[in-house]
């Protein structure tokens, strides 16, 4: 007998026919899938008998279920139906009891267990025990409260160093908020109008105590924080600790300097040697962190603008430095110095050697220079810097070569601060229906019918970099003008040059008044001129109302003042002649004869004595020395001859004789001339 195999024919549907002709069959359904398929075929909307049948089915299914998958699609339906069945059965029973004709009552009684025998003593004992436990818990809690309070007001702690009081002080100056169980603060200037992305979040926590622990701090006398609480210089244990993000630790400042030489434009590497000890008072720590944030924002803004701007000589942005050309051969260097407290210097490759704790520091150059100390130049200004106390050095270069311009750094801070201010402060009054932040001119643009170019011009705003470059140009030009005037004043003693600088000036405009007068003859004549200094040019307003505009080249100013000196001498001489009774025969501002002046023109004056027999001629040019000539006619020794019979014929002009007035007595030119006049009149 052969075995007969019973197997399911491969009649599963074909899922896919591959390219090689083989067929992928659908897998036969599992038991549960099969059941689900069957269940889908049941129609529940048929008669009750069928439901009963179904129920039987379902019960069978239920029996099967433990062996099958516990969850199947109709489980919920089944449960509900079952529940309903139970309820309906109960209702049916109830009705069967109540329905018979002599009505019966049904009483529902709770099932009662036998009450346990009350044991009074044991109960009493357990009560006592629980009372004692409660008492102990309460006492423990009280003890813990006491201990924590005692820790707060420990005698080692100065009064006012309580955590909450410090927190109050912190809150008075800094933004704080409570997130969950931690206290977070916000350092960023966003609430003041900044748009910088850095979150600037710091965390406030209770300092864990311990002798010599992180709570100890010592405040140096150099703490220049304006809002720091008045604390003594001794070590004080602070019960509050702030944690600032690592990128904001340490201290930073913006280094600004003006370089004059063409070479090594980007070879200077900035390093800062301001060390911050790990634990300082939170106020200083926060202030420094905020300063770091501010400097970073300032620098990133400047760098962005430097890249975006396209001047004729492009700005260089290398690492943490920006170099911009302000005048030919003169560069502005703006750098970000950030020492993050440990050892790393951001962007600087100079090796740092710890200086003597704080203000001045030592910077060792990266290349063949040995070590250069920079104590002297910065120690004076150390307290005045925005960053607190920077020791500035440039890697590989003599630190004295580049002087940190504190006022320009301050100007940068001011500029960014103004940006903040403008983002929040809108000038009042403005109509209620106007958008916030719109300027008055822009509001009036519609009614006034401005065209596109006007609007575009109105929207143009100077970037920070442009503004600071203008300021630096002005600063540089002012210093240069000052230098030229001082040099001239030191060089020329004869007419004294006195300059009065206007104390009130704007960052891009200042004014100097120059008085030229001769010593001892101040009342005779003063030549006054005013020079307005703007960014790239000078404007000089002379005494006679002439206005001259000069470029930034110092030689032009020098020439102008030399001309003025020459003219002053001539004019003063004429005034003096009026006092002494001499007559001005002629005065010529621009003489066409004589040696050619390299610049401007020479001027001459001719004076005649009261009696008319002596004539003084003075010739003066800006670059020539003053020459004085005298001619006298008639000659005192007149002997009549056959040709010239009378003395009156001698009144024709005689030959000129030069006076060597540099050998004459007298303090200055006018004095000499006065003496000369006196001598000639006598």
């Amino acid at each position, binding site marked *: 007998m052969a075995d007969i195999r019973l197997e399911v024919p491969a009649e599963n549907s074909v899922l896919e026919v591959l390219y090689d002709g083989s067929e992928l069959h659908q897998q036969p359904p599992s038991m549960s899938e099969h059941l689900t398929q069957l269940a889908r075929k049941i129609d529940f909307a048929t008669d009750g008998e069928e439901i009963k049948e179904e129920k039987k089915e379902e019960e069978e299914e239920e029996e099967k279920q433990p062996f099958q998958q516990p969850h199947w699609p109709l489980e919920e339906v089944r449960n509900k139906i079952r529940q309903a069945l139970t309820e309906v059965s109960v209702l049916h029973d109830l009705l069967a009891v109540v329905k018979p004709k002599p009505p019966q009552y049904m009483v529902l009684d709770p099932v009662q267990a036998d009450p346990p025998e009350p044991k009074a003593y044991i109960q009493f004992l357990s009560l*006592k*025990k629980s*009372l*004692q436990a*409660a*008492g*102990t*818990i*309460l*006492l*423990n*809690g*009280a*003890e813990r*409260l*006491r201990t924590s*309070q005692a820790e*707060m*007001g420990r005698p080692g702690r100065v009064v006012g160093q*309580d955590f*909450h*009081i410090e927190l*109050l002080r912190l809150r008075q*100056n*800094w*933004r704080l*908020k409570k997130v969950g169980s931690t206290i977070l603060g*916000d350092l960023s*200037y966003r*609430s*003041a*109008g900044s748009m910088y992305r850095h979150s600037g979040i710091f965390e406030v926590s209770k300092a864990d105590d311990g002798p010599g622990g992180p709570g100890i701090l010592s405040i140096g006398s150099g703490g*220049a924080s*304006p*809002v720091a609480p008045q604390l003594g210089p001794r070590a004080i244990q602070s019960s509050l600790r702030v944690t600032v993000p690592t990128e904001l630790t340490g201290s930073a400042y913006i280094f600004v300097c003006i370089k004059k030489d063409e070479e090594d434009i980007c070879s200077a590497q900035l390093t800062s040697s301001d060390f911050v000890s790990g634990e300082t008072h939170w106020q200083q720590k926060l*202030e420094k962190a*905020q300063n770091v944030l*501010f400097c970073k924002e300032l620098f990133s803004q400047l760098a962005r603008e430097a890249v975006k701007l396209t001047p004729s000589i492009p700005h260089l942005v290398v690492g943490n430095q920006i170099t911009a050309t302000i005048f030919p051969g003169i560069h502005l260097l703006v750098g970000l110095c950030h020492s993050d407290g440990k050892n790393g210097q951001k962007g600087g490759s100079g090796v740092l050697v710890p200086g003597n704790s704080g203000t001045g520091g030592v910077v060792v150059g990266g290349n063949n220079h040995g070590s250069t100390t920079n104590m002297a130049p910065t120690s*004076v*200004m150390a*307290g*005045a*810097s*925005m960053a607190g106390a920077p020791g500035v050095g440039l890697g590989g270069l003599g630190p004295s070569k580049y002087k940190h311009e*504190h*006022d320009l750094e*301050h100007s940068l*801070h*001011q500029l960014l*601060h103004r940006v*903040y*201010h403008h983002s*929040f402060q809108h000038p009042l009054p403005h109509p209620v229906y106007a958008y916030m932040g719109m300027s008055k001119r822009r509001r009036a643009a519609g009614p006034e019918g401005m065209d596109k170019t006007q609007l575009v011009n109105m929207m143009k705003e100077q970037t920070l970099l442009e503004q600071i470059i203008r300021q630096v140009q002005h600063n540089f030009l002012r210093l240069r003008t000052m230098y030229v005037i001082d040099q001239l004043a030191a060089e020329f003693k004869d007419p004294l040059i006195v300059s009065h600088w206007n104390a009130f000036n704007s960052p891009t405009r200042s004014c100097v008044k120059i008085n030229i007068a001769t010593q001892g003859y101040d009342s005779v004549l003063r030549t006054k001129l005013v020079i307005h200094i703007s960014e790239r040019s000078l404007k000089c307003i002379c005494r006679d109302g002439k206005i001259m505009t000069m470029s930034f080249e110092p030689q032009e100013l020098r020439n102008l003042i030399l001309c003025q000196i020459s003219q002053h001498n001539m004019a003063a001489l004429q005034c003096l002649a009026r006092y002494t009774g001499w007559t001005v025969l002629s005065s010529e501002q621009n003489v066409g004869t004589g040696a050619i002046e390299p610049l401007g023109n020479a001027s001459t004056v001719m004076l005649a004595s009261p009696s008319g027999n002596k004539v003084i001629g003075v010739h003066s040019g800006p670059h020539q020395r003053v020459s004085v000539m005298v001619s006298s006619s008639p000659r005192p020794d007149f002997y009549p001859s056959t040709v010239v019979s009378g003395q009156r014929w001698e009144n024709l002009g005689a030959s000129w004789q030069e006076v060597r007035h540099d050998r004459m007595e007298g303090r200055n030119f006018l004095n000499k001339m006065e003496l000369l006049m006196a001598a000639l009149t006598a």
Partner: protein
Amino acid sequence: MSSPMDRLQTLDNIEKDIATVLQSAGHALSELSKDKPANKQVEGHVNQFRQTLTNVETELAKQINYLTQVSTGQAHEGSSYNSQKTLQMAMHRLDHARTRVNELDTIKTKYIQLLQQHQLQKQQQGMQQQQPSSQS
């Protein structure tokens, strides 16, 4: 309710009172749990408990009243950073001015010293010239 310091002090006191409340309650319960509870002590503790509790309640109510008066539901979004920055810059300017004045002062003292030295030298020279003339 004058200064925040006083307010913090009051809150501290309240906290101490709460500790006292807990302690007296604990004492009362442990006294009760003894085999022979002393009635007087229990009464004392309970009285203290009730008294301090009333105290705490009134004080806390005062504080809460105050807070409802001064506080709003919204968080304070402003900050004094702007003015602080202004202050810092003003301090910086002041420092700068001070430094410059100090520099001027140093120059002045240096000049005065030079002048004095010069005068001394002149006097000495004059003395030396006088001495030979008087000798001759």
